[in-house]
Structure formats: structure tokens, C-alpha cells
């Protein structure tokens, strides 16, 4: 869909059967809603609350021609490139983090001209999701003005009709699919998130189809006991799946810290053997397992317990 086309985006929502009923399903079923060629917006940020279980299922189901957008993209982007599942990436930053150096896989693909890489500023992309969430074609901002990012993105400048100042207009983004991981949800899709909200609520409202994995599915009465903790209403959600450790080895605020040793081993392998190591990782962690339970078994109970302890040390007991 053309970006900024808020009319078409709303027509899509209206054409979809809307449900306020039970949306609890399996990961396999939920991820079947993703189609070849879709634009998938990924919740969380970098290695925090990434919907890794769902993303790996997308790879397992062999989708092709996808576009991924995410404000800070971590190595899940490498897995999608190595799987030849993506044509385009839209982000403000791609890497694991400072200590792990540049992404060799990203360099290989972009420098080789094998992928569309669209760079926005962090806020610029955030405002694209927000405009989508608001159902408007654009939002005005001062960010990105004057930079070369203006020339490589679908932004426009305008003279403000009230003040005469120059403004950057960022077009709304309406992803086909939002993949999100949250702390808890009920079977109707009402979601609560602890700690960092990141951009999940905007992404959910902007997307045509919303797939949520949750650390825990709770009784609806538990959600209704603290409605002021709900950040995404069931009305917006299409499928919800219980998926404990659904972000692992990325972090889930308050529950488990990211497994930095795992990042280290992964990047060491890439440094030692080149980007073929990304394919080895895919073989082991995505295609070598039948699903999330086997995947977690590769890390082992002890690693999960250790990362829980790290979170508790840092933020106190939940």
C-alpha cells in the first residue's frame, strides 16, 4: 500500500471482520495470517521485548518478499536476510549494540545491493507509526530537516500555514502486520505491558492485522481489575498466543534479561566463519526445532533461570 494512504488503510480495517470474541490460538495458526510480500512492523526495540518466537515461526513458514520495519533492528534482521525472506528493511539503526560491532550480514546485503534499506531517524519512523495509529496521512515535525535523510525517504517539507515555518511531514505507515510480544493478555486480546512501552501501541493501531504473543494469558477479570494498565484493546488484535519466554534470548522487562553471552557466541561465530554462521544459526534455532519449546530447550533451563535472576537483581522482584 502507498504510504500515507489513510483512506485505503481505514477501508482495509473496515473490510476485515472485526471481532470482540476469543482470539486465543497457536503460534502456527496466528502466524499463518502473515502473507508473502507483507510489511511486518516489529514491536519492542532492539533486544527488548522482541517477538522472537513469532518472527522465527514466520521464517519456519517460509514467507518471502517481506518488508520489515523496526526502529532499532537487531540480529533478527540478519536471520531474515539469510533466509532470503525480506526485500526491504526500514529502520533507524541496525546492529546488536556497541560491544558487538557492525553487522556483517547487513553490510554484505546492502553493499551488495541485494536489499532495499530505508533509513529514517528514530523519531521520524516513530511518528510514521503514530500517524498511522491516529488515522491521519502525516504528522509534522522538525526532526530530519536539513539532513540527507530527507532525500532518501518519502518525507515532504511544507510551510506551516499558521506560522510560516518550514516543517518536515512524515507520511503515515500502515503495516500489513504487527508482531508484538507483551507481558500479559486475556483471550480477547486486551494487552498489558510492564516497563518500557516502546512503540507497540502505535504499531498495533497502525497495522491492518495484529498478532500478539504474551508471556502469560490471564483471565479477563485480571485485566479488568487494572484497566488502567491495558495499552492495547482487544478490538485492535486479531490473534493472541501464550508464549512464555517469547522474546528469549532478548529481554522481557522485569522478567528476564537479555542473554549477552549468547549474543557474544553468535557474533564470534560470524566473525570467525563469516556470514555463513548466520545460516548455521538458522539451521539450529529456527529450522532445527519444531517450535518454541524445543527452541528454549536449546538454551536450557539453567540459562532461563539465570536470566530471570539477572532481571530480579536489576529491578527487584515482580
Amino acid at each position: 500500500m502507498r504510504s500515507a494512504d489513510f483512506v485505503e488503510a481505514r477501508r482495509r480495517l473496515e473490510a476485515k471482520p472485526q471481532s470482540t470474541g476469543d482470539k486465543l490460538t497457536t503460534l502456527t495458526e496466528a502466524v499463518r495470517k502473515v502473507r508473502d510480500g507483507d510489511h511486518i512492523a516489529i514491536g519492542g526495540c532492539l533486544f527488548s521485548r522482541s517477538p522472537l518466537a513469532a518472527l522465527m515461526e514466520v521464517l519456519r513458514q517460509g514467507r518471502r518478499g517481506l518488508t520489515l520495519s523496526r526502529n532499532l533492528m537487531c540480529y533478527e534482521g540478519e536471520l531474515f536476510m539469510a533466509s532470503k525472506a525480506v526485500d526491504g528493511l526500514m529502520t533507524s539503526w541496525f546492529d546488536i549494540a556497541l560491544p558487538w560491532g557492525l553487522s556483517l550480514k547487513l553490510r554484505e546485503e546492502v553493499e551488495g545491493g541485494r536489499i532495499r534499506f530505508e533509513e529514517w531517524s528514530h523519531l521520524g519512523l516513530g511518528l510514521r507509526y503514530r500517524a498511522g495509529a491516529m488515522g491521519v496521512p502525516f504528522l509534522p515535525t522538525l526532526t530530519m530537516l536539513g539532513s540527507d535523510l530527507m532525500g532518501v525517504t518519502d518525507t515532504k517539507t511544507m510551510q506551516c500555514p499558521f506560522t510560516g515555518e518550514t516543517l518536515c511531514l512524515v507520511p503515515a505507515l500502515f503495516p500489513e502486520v504487527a508482531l508484538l510480544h507483551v507481558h500479559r493478555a486475556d483471550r480477547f486480546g486486551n494487552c498489558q505491558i510492564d516497563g518500557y512501552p516502546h512503540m507497540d501501541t502505535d504499531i498495533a493501531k497502525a497495522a491492518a492485522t495484529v498478532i500478539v504473543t504474551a508471556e502469560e494469558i490471564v483471565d479477563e477479570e485480571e485485566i479488568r481489575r487494572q484497566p488502567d494498565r491495558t495499552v492495547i484493546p482487544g478490538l485492535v488484535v486479531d490473534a493472541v498466543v501464550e508464549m512464555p519466554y517469547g522474546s528469549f534470548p532478548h529481554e522481557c522487562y522485569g522478567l528476564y534479561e537479555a542473554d549477552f553471552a549468547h549474543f557474544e557466541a553468535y557474533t564470534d561465530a560470524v566473525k570467525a566463519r563469516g556470514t555463513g554462521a548466520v545460516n548455521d544459526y538458522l539451521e539450529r534455532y529456527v529450522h532445527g526445532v519444531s517450535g518454541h519449546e524445543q527452541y528454549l530447550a536449546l538454551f536450557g533451563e539453567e540459562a532461563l533461570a539465570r536470566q530471570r535472576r539477572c532481571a530480579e537483581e536489576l529491578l527487584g522482584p515482580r
Partner: protein
Amino acid sequence: MSYSDTELLAVVAARQLAGVTSVFAGVGVPLVAAVLAQKTRAPQLVIVVEGGSMGPRMVPGRLPYSTNEMRTAPRAQMLPGITDTFLFAQRGFLDVGFVGGAQIDPYGNLNSSVIGGYERPKVRLPGSGGANDIISLCRRVMVVTMHERRRFVPKVDFVTSPGFLSGGDSRRDAGLVFGTVSRIVTHLGTLAFDPESRRLQLESLHPGVTVQQVRDNTGFELPAPEHVPVTEPPSAEELETLRSIDPERNFLG
């Protein structure tokens, strides 16, 4: 007490935060400097991290690797969403921003996107992240960086984060009515901008560094005043505090 280049950089950056109410800092040396400032000259300082953390108390030895993780949150005062965090800057609430980049030019423009062309670059770098937003929206921005000739180039390959663009009023003319780049803090000295031309010039030297040494590490002409002030060397207290913040030297190298 002897100190490394990174330690010197962190100490000098921290001193810039005396009297500052809030600093928008990325991970690495900028964040270490902000924590050092809190523990020395700026107890009132609220650290803001783009992942959505306001006023956290970083845990020494468990500094974050990214701007978006639990380690950035301990005992924060607020955890706003990422977009809202930047909007605090756009509205004008955030005082100082710390940024960096792979390349910097005489007008303070920064590149963290590509070496070479945008479409088929020689090196694809990680990208803007929040740097473009911070430099466009905070009240005052300082570039905190190691001082290397390959970094200080006559023209950046790509303006990821706008400094003074082509100098003069060009930043204002592009619509960037707020904020300013006030200073470049490096491990050799500090650079500031000529108020008219908005070109960089040497402002101060760190102890033992010569003007020539700075020029050797700068890929463009760098005017210097006749008498260049010299930075007070890091004190034992500053260094001890700094080292206690990052005892494993994950970021101090």
C-alpha cells in the same frame, strides 16, 4: 594519576554537564560521562535515554549496552514510550544532548549512515538511531568523540545528523529553529563554532596536547586562537569515580 584517552574524554564530557538539568545521552562514553557528572558536579542531573528512560540510577558494573534495555531503567522516574521521549526534546524540555558519528565535518554535520554512496555504499554503518533527532531537537548538543583524522573530514559522505549544514544561517533556513551544536569534545581538546561562519575552530587543548597534534588528527583546516586554554587534568577523584562506574571497563576500553 595516569589515565587513558577514553577516560580523559569521559571526564571532560562530564564537566560539560555542570549546572545542566537534563542530558539526552547514548550508551558508551556519553552515558558513562553523564553518570560521572551525576556523582560529581551535577547531582541534580536527570539522565534521559532514548529507549524511554528518564532519571534512572545506573548500576555501576551493570551499565547498559543499548539505549533500550532493563539496565537503562533501574529506579527511573518515568519510562515514556520512545516517540514520546523524543517529543519531550521537540517541545524543548531537554537541555543537553550528547551525540557521536563516524564522520564529522567543519560545520559539525555528522555521518553515521554510509561511507561512500547511499545506494551501494562502501561501508553500511548502523544508521542515525536517535542522533538526528537529538541534534535537531535538544537545546544544546555536544559531540563527544575520539579525535581521529579519518573521522574529521572536509565533507561527510552523508549528513545523517545536521550540524550547521553549510554554515551561516543555513541550519535555521532548513527549518531547524531550535537547538544548536555548542561544542565538540574530543580526547585531544574541545572545538567550538565561529559565531558567524559556523565553522569549527579550536577552543581548548587537553594537557600535553599541541595545536599541531590536533591539526594532524583533523582532516580540514582548523583555526586556533593565539593562546589556547588548557584543560585541567582529570583529578584523582574524577578518575576513581569514573572507574567505579565501569569497573569491568566495558566502555572505558
